[in-house]
Structures are given as structure tokens and as C-alpha cells.
């Protein structure tokens, strides 16, 4: 067991370091490349275009620390995640950013962007009107035009042209990252997944913070190791986790301290971030637009049909899910609006669910009792 533990630590050390030391990484990246760093607020941000411009796009996430600096800026009925993110800016923890941008999604995180614009000095900021009606044939042409405007804006800021070749290269790097992450996730379908939910989260979160070429190299190494890796613990009950943004490692670790493993997720910090490729066919901005329009949607864009319900059920089946933990950032309206329908669909498919409301910090003791009871219920199902 001891050698296994050492291997575990080494296998994921790179990813963990990147996540924990994201500021240091970004600062060193700037020194190394002379490039600029752009913070973005939602995974609808077209990172390929920024990367093609020599920019490092990094996702702005919270710290899971209680804070008291956002009350004057965001009414407390909005989600704790958007306030946690703004707190990071107000506390100067993203002082290495040269710019910020948001691709329009929910009203909650939009306030983080607009308050950041107003109160935190920054060289560049951009609001991209990412369409909501992604089920309309009008969405991709509209977003293509918006990407042209965004590209012009970036070129003006940087004083250089973003050429076709650079966009092709960026798409290639990003698609490669998505395919490598997808291969890592494929391994979780097996009877004995070689990585835990916590480790998978470590990998996918770090991908949102570092240069994709660095991440790709690390993923290649990881995949080589995972193919030989014997899990150090039994898989136990196969769980899915889904809902609002979630980077709460402590919660994942707590659940997996029981006889259970998260084998799949549906979070914007997880699969929804990387699930779809950019398909190359003609105009590159059109291709990028099409990817973001057709990706697995955030609930705020999932209408009039609820396509995500079908996707979640497919994931549950493909990954052999036995139970699902449905989480929601407190006050997250888009997810709150989908949760009753999603829960019904999962229950109808024979998958029991546990609903938990997340805040910046979670009551880990109380949640532990509820999770344990949920797992006992699922395990009794296996028994009888």
C-alpha cells in the first residue's frame, strides 16, 4: 500500500501543483513567453481565439474561504460562487491578469465581471454576447459575427493580427486536450477505474488554469501511468455528481472516504468544459462558434427542449452509475430550474439521487451523515 500511495502522489502532483499554485504558474508563464493572461468567467469563453492571439486564458474560480468584501457589490441573493470569484479579485489574488472577459451565461457570474470592471484596475475587459438560443439555427451565424468583433478587439489591444494559422494551431492544441481528457474519463467506465473522482477533478480543473500544451504533455504521461495503475482502493458504489459549478475538492474527498467512487460528472468545471471538439470545416471562426453553440449546454441555454437531461442519462448508463449526487450552488436559478426534471428523469431510470445545496464552504459534517445514509440506501439495494 505504501508504494501505491507514493505513486498516487507523484502521478497527480503536477496537476495538483498547477491548481494550488495557479498564480505562480501564470506569472512564470508570462515571464517565459512574454504573453498576456486573460481571466475568464464562464466556460463559454472561446479560449481558442485568445490562445491563437498568444494569450493564456485562465478560468477565475473562488477560494472556498469565507469572505466579507463583496457585500457592497453583489446582493446576497446571488450565488456564493459569483461572490467568491469577485472576492479573489478584490483581494488582489489575480493581480497577474492583463485582461478579463466573459462569455454571456447566467446573470449571477455576470455581476462578478461588471463589478471587476468597475473596481479592479485592468488593462482590458470584454463582454461577449454568447447567444442563449443555442437550439436555434440562427445562433452559430450570430456567434460567428460576434467572434469576428472579439477578434478585432483582441487585435487592437495586442497591436497584432491573429492569423489563420495561429487559429488552426490553437484549435489543434485545444482539441487535443479535450481528446486526452476524454481518454482519461473513458478509463472511468471500467469496473475498477484507475483514478478517483477527486483525482479526475484535479486533472480537469488544472486544465482550466494552465497552457494547454503543458497540460497535454502531462496528460500523455498520466495516461501512460494510468494504463498500468492498479487502484489502491475498491471502487465501491459508482456515483455521478452533477449540477452547478463545482470545484469543492473537500466534498469529493469526503464522499470517496466511504466505499464509493465518482465515475462521472456533469459540471461546467468537469465534462461540460471539454466534452465537445471544434470540428474543422471551412471558416474557422464559424467552426469555433459552432462548437460553443453545440456543446453540452449550461441550463441557462438549454431551452426550449431540455437536451441536458438526455445527455445526463446517457452518461449515467455509459458509466454504470448507481447513484447520483445532485448539487446546486445556493441561489443558482438555472440549475434550480432543471433539478426537478433531472431528478425525475434519473429516478425514473432507476438511479436514486441525493440533493445538496452548496455554499462557499460546505457543512462537511452534516453532509457526511447525509452521504453515508444515501450510500447505505444504495448498498442495501445491491444486497436485496
Amino acid at each position, binding site marked *: 500500500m505504501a508504494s501505491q500511495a507514493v505513486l498516487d502522489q507523484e502521478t497527480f502532483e503536477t496537476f495538483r501543483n498547477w491548481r494550488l499554485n495557479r498564480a505562480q504558474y501564470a506569472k512564470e508563464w508570462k515571464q517565459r513567453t512574454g504573453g498576456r493572461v486573460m481571466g475568464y468567467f464562464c466556460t463559454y469563453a472561446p479560449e481558442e481565439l485568445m490562445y491563437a492571439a498568444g494569450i493564456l486564458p485562465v478560468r477565475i474560480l473562488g477560494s472556498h474561504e469565507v469572505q466579507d468584501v463583496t*457585500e*457592497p*457589490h*453583489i*446582493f446576497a*441573493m*446571488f450565488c456564493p460562487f459569483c461572490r467568491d470569484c469577485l472576492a479573489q479579485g478584490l483581494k488582489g489574488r489575480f493581480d497577474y491578469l492583463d485582461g478579463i472577459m466573459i462569455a*454571456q451565461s*447566467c*446573470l*449571477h457570474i*455576470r*455581476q462578478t465581471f*461588471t*463589478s471587476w*470592471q*468597475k473596481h479592479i484596475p485592468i488593462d482590458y475587459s470584454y*463582454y461577449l*454576447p454568447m*447567444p*442563449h*438560443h443555442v437550439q*436555434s*439555427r*440562427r*445562433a452559430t*451565424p*450570430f456567434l460567428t*459575427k*460576434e467572434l469576428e*468583433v472579439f477578434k478585432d478587439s483582441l487585435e487592437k489591444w495586442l497591436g497584432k493580427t491573429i492569423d489563420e494559422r495561429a487559429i488552426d494551431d490553437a484549435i489543434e492544441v485545444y482539441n487535443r486536450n479535450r481528446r486526452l481528457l476524454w481518454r482519461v474519463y473513458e478509463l472511468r467506465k471500467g469496473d475498477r477505474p484507475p483514478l478517483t473522482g477527486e483525482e479526475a477533478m484535479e486533472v480537469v480543473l488544472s486544465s482550466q488554469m494552465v497552457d494547454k500544451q503543458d497540460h497535454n504533455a502531462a496528460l500523455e504521461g498520466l495516461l501512460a501511468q494510468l494504463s498500468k495503475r492498479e487502484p489502491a482502493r475498491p471502487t465501491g458504489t459508482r456515483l455521478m455528481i452533477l449540477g452547478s459549478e463545482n470545484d469543492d475538492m473537500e466534498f469529493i474527498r469526503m464522499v470517496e472516504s466511504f466505499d464509493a467512487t465518482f465515475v462521472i460528472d456533469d459540471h461546467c468545471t468537469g465534462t461540460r468544459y471539454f466534452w465537445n471538439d471544434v470540428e474543422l470545416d471551412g471558416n474557422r471562426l464559424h467552426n469555433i462558434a459552432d462548437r460553443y453553440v453545440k456543446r453540452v449546454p449550461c*441550463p*441557462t441555454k438549454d*431551452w*426550449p427542449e*431540455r437536451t441536458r437531461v438526455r445527455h445526463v442519462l446517457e452518461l449515467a448508463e455509459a458509466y454504470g452509475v448507481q447513484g447520483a449526487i445532485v448539487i446546486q450552488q*445556493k*441561489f443558482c*436559478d*438555472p440549475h*434550480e*430550474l*432543471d*433539478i*426537478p*426534471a433531472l*431528478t425525475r428523469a434519473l429516478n425514473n431510470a432507476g438511479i436514486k439521487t441525493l440533493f445538496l445545496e452548496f455554499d462557499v464552504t460546505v457543512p462537511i459534517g452534516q453532509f457526511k451523515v447525509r452521504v453515508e445514509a444515501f450510500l447505505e440506501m444504495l448498498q442495501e439495494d445491491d444486497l436485496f
Partner: protein
Amino acid sequence: MADKAKYKTAPLKCWKKAKELRLKYYEDYAKAHERGGLRWAGGAWSFSAIPSGLGEDVWSLTSEPYAASIAFDKDFSLRCLEAAEKASYARDLCAYMRNYWGSIILNEYAFGGPFPKPDFIWQDHICCSHAKWYQVVSDLEGGIPHFCMDVSVGPYNEMAPHKIDYLVGQMHDGIEWLEETTGRIYDDDLLIEAVKNEFRTTSTWAEICSYNKHVPAPLDEKSMYSLYVLGTLNKHDRQVAEFYQELRDEVKERVEQGIAAIPNEQCRLMSDTQPPWGFLSIFRYMEEFGAISIGSLYTFGLIGIWEDKPDGSWGPRATPMQQGIDIKDRDQALRLYADWTLSKPEWQHFYSPHLKTEMMIRIAREWQLNGILLHYNRGCEGLSVGIAENRLGLIEAGFPVMAFEGNMGDEREFDEARVKVRFDTFMETLGLKKNGKS
């Protein structure tokens, strides 16, 4: 000396007509099927002129004012809210939605009888909830055809042809969908007439609100709620367009004759976001101090369409007809309609609170205000978005601001006594005494 009557006052002559038009609207919707007509449901923000092309026997139920009507009846509202919660919908969701869903679940129409199920849904998505509101309606009703448009192309000061194209494209798709869904042939002449009516309604409402720049104000906000509501119900309707012109003439006359909304006006305020509908008496409470709310960005800009006037002031936007534009076909009508509606002031704040702050400062200056009341409205994330930044911006601009927390449609989240105590304190800071007592 708040009790001293400085101005003459008089009831509005067209008040009764406004009430009749509102009741008729809800009756028409309920009785549509008896008359062989169609019923549709959607938001007050929706492009309501478009379904008019299906015929003159098509009636709508706009969701927000319907839910506000429920909220006004606190007992019925509580039953609706609890029914929605029992059906697993979260208590912190939009209070309008929860009231509306509760009315369906209980199968009780606020205006009598069972809830009249719509034949189709015609909606637009302005906040995180609007399109999804009707996903749930469809779930609850066992499935209703649903078309929804996205309007989130960015603020009007950044308008560009491709943004209008995006909207107009969806409108064309919507008309095809309406024909397929209802089996009716679409009539462009009816569309053009409805669009023209809406231009008239929304421009005239802005003109009416402009008259409140006058001291004393001819209208108070509590009364304005009963007038602007017609624009939220049926802004594309000829009767509403004509009623607003009649109202405009009467308000103009009140200004010319010095007729005030309240006799003791000595402090001019504005509010923000929807009021707590079950507690409109707070506006009368303010009047005990000689304070009048002359309106808000919400009452001015949800229905009113505005523009910069040559003298630099904010006034009613000139309609395409006033500009001499002859609307000849469907595409032209839709383009003008898209451009017109995207300039709606109440849509701009969705992109940035700073745009809203600028508009509020403009109102505060042009309408000669002494202070601002911000309703931190737990019932509506859409209109409360950025409200804390509005507070900071207004204070920075030098305006006294009072923030109070509440909920437009969930009486459990409004503490009337506590809010009145806050009013007392705020009025004191403005140097006002209740009923003139020292």
C-alpha cells in the same frame, strides 16, 4: 409641514377605464375558446405583436402581471407559493414564476374559474428564468408547444446589423412555427397594425412619464402601476394605444392646470425594481411625509421607449410613423420592431449595472429628485441584478439612497414594519417630518 396642502389635486378621469381594460383583458383570455379563438401565454417582455398576425381572435396571458395580480392577493399567493414548493420548486426562485406555477397546480385562475391552459407559449429569454419558466409550465400542463426568442445581443449603444439579423431571423422562424403550430395562415397586415400600435403605446407611455418632470408631479408611482400595467398586458393592442393617448392628454392637462398627484409634495423620490405587490400601502406611508415616488426606471422603462432629445433631455422615442417611415412588409416590420424593442431602457441593465446607474442618475437629475429607494428584491434576480453597484454609483453621484430588502411576490419575505422604520429614518435624514409634526 408635510400635511400642508400646497397643491390642488383631483382623481384621474380615465382611472375607471384603465381598470375596465385590465379586467376585460383577463376575461378575454379566459373566454377565448368559447369564442373559437386561441390563447397564448408568454412574458410581458415578449414580442407580443407577432402572434397578432394569426387573427383578431387571439388572446394572451402575460406572465409577470398575472403573477403580480396573484401576489396582490396575499392569501391566494401564499397558497400558490406553497403549492409550487410542494411540487419541488425552490423557494428562492423568481416569485412571479412560483405564483404562476401555483395557480396552475391549484387549477385556480386569479380572475375566477379554473386556470385557462394556453394553446401555445410565445416567450423571450431576458433573464436566467424566462425561457425555463415555461418549460415548467409545459411540464405542469402535460405539454404545450413552446417558442422562445433570445434577445441577449448586448446593449443598444453597441447595436450592429448582425444583432438585429439574429433577432429578426428568430422572428421569421417564430412566424413559421406559429403557422405550423396553429394551422392558421399568417396575416402580415395584422402584424403591421399590431407593431404600429405597439410603437404608439410604448412611445406614448414614455411621454406620459416625461410629464412627471413637472413639479408638482401629476402622477404618483402607486397610481402609475395601475396604468402602465396595460402596456405589460397588451402593448400591441389598438385599445391600449388609444387609451394611452387619452391618458397622455389628461396628464398634460393636469400639468397645465397645476393638478398634483399628492397635495403636499415636498420631496421627490424614485423607487427601483418591482414593488412588493402585497404592500403597496408603503407608498401612501411615504406621502405622510410629503414624499412622492414619481416613478422609476422600472415604471418608465419596462414599457416606455425613450431617446435623447435635441435639447439633451430624455423623452419619448419618435415612432417610425412619426419619422415618416411607411411599413410595407413583414421583414421591414420585424426589423423596425426588433430595433425599437432592443432600445428598451429596462433591457440595458442586464448587460451592466453601470448602464443602469447612468440612466438612474439621469432620471434623478431631470425629474429633480431628492432621494432614491432601492428595493433589493429577492423575488426577481433579473431586475435586482447589479443593484448593489447601482447603490454605490448613485451615492457617488451625490444622491441619498435608501435600500430595503423585500420580495415583489412572496409576502413571507417582506417585513412591513421594519421597512417603515427604515423609511422613518430615511425621511428624517432628508429633513422631513411625518404629518408635519416636529
